[in-house]
């Protein structure tokens, strides 16, 4: 009965490779997000989707491409991985709206290590 799930939990790969992280939520939310947490624990939003439409696209290299096949899924594909991409990536979801109804719920994270 996991609310927001991500796969894989750990991802170790070589520089230059392409990899994907998958996210699914079963909360009935219409908005999903990708965050990056760096080694200093700083959390920064990368993308958000509402009803499969891209809403937020922060200044993220275009090697990162999110894809939302439906409201319950938001995947993150990363091309040509670089050392600096090593971080923990969190998926989150919420209802679109204001106040407590739009609280964001986070997944368990995917720790990406680029060698």
């Amino acid at each position, binding site marked *: 009965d996991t609310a*927001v799930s991500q796969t894989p939990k750990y991802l170790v790969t070589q520089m230059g490779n392409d990899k994907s992280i998958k996210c699914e939520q079963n909360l009935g939310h219409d908005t999903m997000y990708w965050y990056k947490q760096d080694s200093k624990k700083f959390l920064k939003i990368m993308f958000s989707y509402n009803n499969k439409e891209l809403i937020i696209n922060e200044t993220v290299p275009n090697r990162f491409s999110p894809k939302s096949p439906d409201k319950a899924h938001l995947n993150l594909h990363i091309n040509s991985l670089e050392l600096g991409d090593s971080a923990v990536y969190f998926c989150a979801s919420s209802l679109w709206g204001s106040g407590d109804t739009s609280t*964001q719920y986070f997944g368990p*994270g995917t720790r990406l290590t680029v060698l």
Partner: protein
Amino acid sequence: QQQVKQSPQSLIVQKGGIPIINCAYENTAFDYFPWYQQFPGKGPALLIAIRPDVSEKKEGRFTISFNKSAKQFSLHIMDSQPGDSATYFCAARLEGAQKLVFGQGTRLTINP
């Protein structure tokens, strides 16, 4: 303008003490201020949240104090326990954009 400044970076308190974590912001377009708790290896989890038209909100041992004129808000943990040891993040949501801007985080340690 979209920053949220959080302090201290780390905090050590004895069991039963009252740790206080402070946050400050500049942008008046923020309309919602949640606090998240993160344990090692886990995702952030919502702890408590407040709207700017409320000066204080309490849930169990956790209290948010909000000072709209000073653009500051803080988290107080009453009767702190070793199980409260975690990283705490304040955040502010940009009105209409559903975008959360996080503070830098505070690593809290409660000694038994």
